[in-house]
């Protein structure tokens, strides 16, 4: 009696919110197409089939759809991430033999919470506890490249197969690149002070309650969607324009399979560019819709998301330039291979 009252009394009301929000989400998601038809064809009375109408339809449909998907997945992933930490990952990676370490590091890179500002402390922490350079790189490659926002968007725009391919190839690139960098024994290109560093004992991991985990899920949604919604909207707007106005097969001429240089050009253009996943994917999807080959488009996206100028600048503090260039080169080549592979298969 008293126990039951206590349970309800001290429970944070926010804990029960998902029970209400989830059915609402499904309701909205299922009806998006009908709602869009209603708005564009009936209410605004636009002529079906014209460039403007189709662009608008794409925009009105895709923006809420993408935002809904984002909110759901970021919430779920946010909660999963509370069960992981760089400290736990480091402990799990200590002492692992080379290739196993690469596989684990890449896999953990996907689920371990990682903000690029923590790249340096994380790198130092891994190296200092004896984790090999190559294994550390597998983590650093996987973490930004395999991005849950990208997975969601690819799933929403292309289906689960494409999303799965993205994760699998991203993992492969992270594992193999890290392994290669390890085998090249490039420790001499790490700034020497890194190896001289003696870090202090690390504090105990915080014990989180389930209530706190749910709150962190909400916070993640608020933060990420808050940061990204404008890019998503702009990205979809550009995608809508391409969808409605660019003639079919225009893209095929220079991003299509038959042009051998489309993959390397996409990768080279993508490397210096940096965008968050949300902004670039709707553009990529519209390009594919107009004839760009899947492999080329994927390669472009991975080059943009996975390798970024800001990240390289941050890493310059701990890595010498030759190593940074090697890093870019190995990962870039991996992306290139993936691009060609997919153009070949699909």
């Amino acid at each position, binding site marked *: 009696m008293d126990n039951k009252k206590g349970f309800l009394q001290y429970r944070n009301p926010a804990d029960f919110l998902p029970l209400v929000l989830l059915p609402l989400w499904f309701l909205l998601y299922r009806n998006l197409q009908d709602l869009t038809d209603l708005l564009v064809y009936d209410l605004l009375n636009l002529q079906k089939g014209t460039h403007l109408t189709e662009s608008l339809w794409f925009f009105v449909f895709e923006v809420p759809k993408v935002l809904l998907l984002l909110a759901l997945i970021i919430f779920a992933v946010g909660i999963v991430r509370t069960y992981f*930490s*760089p*400290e736990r990952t*480091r402990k799990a990676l200590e002492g692992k033999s080379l290739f196993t370490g690469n596989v684990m590091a890449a896999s953990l890179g996907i689920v371990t*919470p990682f*903000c690029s*500002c*923590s790249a*340096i*402390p*994380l790198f*130092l*922490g*891994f190296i*200092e506890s004896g984790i090999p350079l190559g294994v550390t790189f597998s983590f650093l490659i996987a973490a930004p490249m395999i991005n849950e926002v990208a997975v969601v968007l690819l799933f929403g725009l292309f289906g689960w197969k494409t999303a799965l391919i993205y994760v699998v190839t991203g993992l492969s690139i992270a594992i193999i690149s890290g392994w290669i960098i390890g085998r090249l024994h490039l420790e001499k290109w790490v700034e020497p*002070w890194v190896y001289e*560093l003696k*870090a*202090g*004992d*690390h*504090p105990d991991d*915080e014990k989180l309650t389930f209530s706190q985990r749910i709150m*962190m899920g909400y916070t993640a949604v608020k933060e990420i969607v808050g940061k990204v919604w404008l890019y998503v909207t702009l990205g979809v707007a550009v995608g809508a324009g391409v969808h409605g106005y660019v003639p079919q097969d225009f893209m095929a001429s220079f991003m299509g399979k038959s042009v051998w240089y489309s993959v390397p050009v996409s990768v080279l253009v993508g490397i210096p560019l940096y965008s968050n996943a949300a902004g670039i994917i709707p553009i990529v999807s519209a390009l594919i819709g107009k004839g760009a080959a899947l492999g080329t488009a994927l390669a472009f996206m991975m080059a943009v998301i996975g390798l970024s100028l800001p990240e390289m600048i941050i890493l310059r*503090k701990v890595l010498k330039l030759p190593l940074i260039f090697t890093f870019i080169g190995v990962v870039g080549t991996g992306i290139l291979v993936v691009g060609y592979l997919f153009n070949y298969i699909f």
Partner: protein
Amino acid sequence: MEIKILGTGCSNCKNLEKAAREAVAELNLDAAVVKEEDIVKIMGYGIMRTPALVVDEKVLVYGRVPSVSEIKEMLIKK
């Protein structure tokens, strides 16, 4: 009491500093709030994630930005 914020300058670190100062002000504590941005010194605390909240050289929170009320609770306990 010395409150130290460990961080290399990203927005989270600034938010933590702001929250910490607010907590100190609301509690009317006689505490100094300092920021440590040197990565070598930060590593001395053994953390792998910034930002971090250190009070009298003990790491209380790291890797996230706690709310002002949470910080106040932690400061009161000290």
